[in-house]
């Protein structure tokens, strides 16, 4: 798909010129007294260090191509993504981290296996060139799906205790009492992905496609990859959100009987 000659490699001069942009932004913030210098500096340093470490790790893994090195890295990425989602839920109910972790793990496993084995059909199932970038992109979406839907559901149940108990008092099972909130939470979890698909190719060129084109790939080939990736991202966000809300709402109830006071 690409070779060393098909794209321009960045040297230190290029990197320095690139860094000038963030330095300029920090300088403008300081000049105008906007107070963003600290956040910008920390974010720029974190981004640089994290990506450099990832780049070096990937280069190392690509050279070795061993499943026992690739798989732990993917598991670590899943753990970090789950933690990141959990952190975004305000006042999470007990067990939320586990619920998110298990759902993200299952959804990632399903999506990545399907993408690598059925759609792209890679020769070696753990080929790090495919597995790691795909897992990375997909996990980004899972973080959104899980965090938004968990946050929305948690808030909705706590804000609607009166209505939920009115349903229960009429003999409704908990799922029926929360049905509207489950739907709303899944819908909210899907909004970023659906919005991105709506404007894809019109308002912005997606990152993966742009990256492939910059690396010398044929634009149409890059487009095909991007379309498949969008579908996978939607599947990921959708299935993560659905699993999270289906398991999480039960944490608010004692069996089929009543709301758990400690969870409210």
């Amino acid at each position, binding site marked *: 798909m690409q070779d060393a000659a098909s794209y321009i490699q960045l040297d230190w001069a290029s990197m320095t010129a690139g860094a000038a942009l963030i330095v300029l932004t920090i300088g403008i913030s300081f000049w105008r007294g906007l107070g963003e210098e600290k956040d910008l500096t920390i974010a720029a340093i974190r981004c640089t260090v994290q990506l450099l470490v990832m780049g070096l790790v990937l280069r190392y893994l690509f050279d070795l191509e061993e499943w026992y090195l690739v798989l732990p890295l993917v598991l670590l990425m899943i753990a970090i993504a789950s933690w990141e989602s959990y952190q975004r839920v305000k006042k999470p109910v007990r067990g939320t981290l586990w619920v998110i972790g298990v759902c993200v793990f299952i959804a990632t496993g399903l999506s990545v296996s399907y993408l690598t084995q059925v759609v792209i059909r890679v020769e070696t199932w753990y080929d790090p060139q495919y597995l790691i970038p795909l897992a990375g992109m997909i996990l980004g979406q899972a973080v959104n799906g899980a965090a938004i839907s968990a946050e929305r559901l948690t808030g909705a149940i706590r804000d609607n205790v*009166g*209505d939920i*108990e*009115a*349903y*229960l*008092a*009429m*003999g*409704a*099972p908990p799922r*029926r009492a929360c049905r509207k909130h489950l739907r709303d939470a899944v819908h909210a979890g899907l909004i970023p992905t659906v919005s991105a698909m709506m404007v894809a190719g019109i308002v912005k060129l997606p990152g993966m496609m742009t990256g492939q084109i910059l690396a010398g790939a044929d634009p149409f080939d890059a487009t095909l990859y991007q379309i498949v990736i969008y579908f996978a991202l939607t599947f990921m966000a959708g299935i993560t959100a659905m699993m999270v809300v289906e398991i999480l709402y039960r944490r608010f109830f*004692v069996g*089929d*009987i*009543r*709301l758990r*006071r*400690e969870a409210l």
Partner: protein
Amino acid sequence: MSCLSLQGVGFHFPDDDRPILKDIGFELCEGDRLTLLGPSGSGKSTILRLIVRLDEATEGTIRTGDQSIDDLPVGELRQRLALVPQEPTLLGLSVRENLELAAELHDIGDGDTPDLEGLLQQVDLAPDIIDRGPRELSVGQKQRVTLARALVARPTALLLDEPTSALDPGSQASVAELLDRVADETGTAVLAVTHSPEFARTLGGRGIFLRQGRIEDCGDMDELLDRDGGSPIRRFLNGELRESS
């Protein structure tokens, strides 16, 4: 046979051993009216919640008919004993949708479809409001709709949590008269929690005065409301007993 009986019932929160209710006992038979009176925080509403298992009693037994409430499927329990919550929530649905929802949840099938307009008339509502949404109804009308919704499943007892708290005195008396009539016509027992002595007197039947989670006095409602100056209920009615801590 009593349609509801409580014996030695107590309750405390899972993370706090201080009792919210202690040694509560009473019995309710077909067509009975029983009113729970007492200051805020005395545990009146909690009793209703324990009966339909929205909270779980930590002591004692609650029975309906000859069965403990723990042995009944929770759907059947809540069909027999219908709780009308304090906030008249219509769940964002129209009057018709509320009544149909109750029928659906209680598995009242096609052959036994409730007469929705008849139900509205039973609670003194004009049938032409049936397609109105919650925003087109007054608080009093909503209260009556929640009552009609509770009657869809033909419960053996109605449990009403402060049914008149949002109503003016005239409307309070008319709700009490309505409940009195429903109890007479259908044999449904009425267990109501209230702050209002006017409501309690109009509903009649028996009364229980609760304070700090315990029964302090009980008897015929008229006798209870006419107790002399030194009694706790008289002090409560005179505004001398405040919220329990």
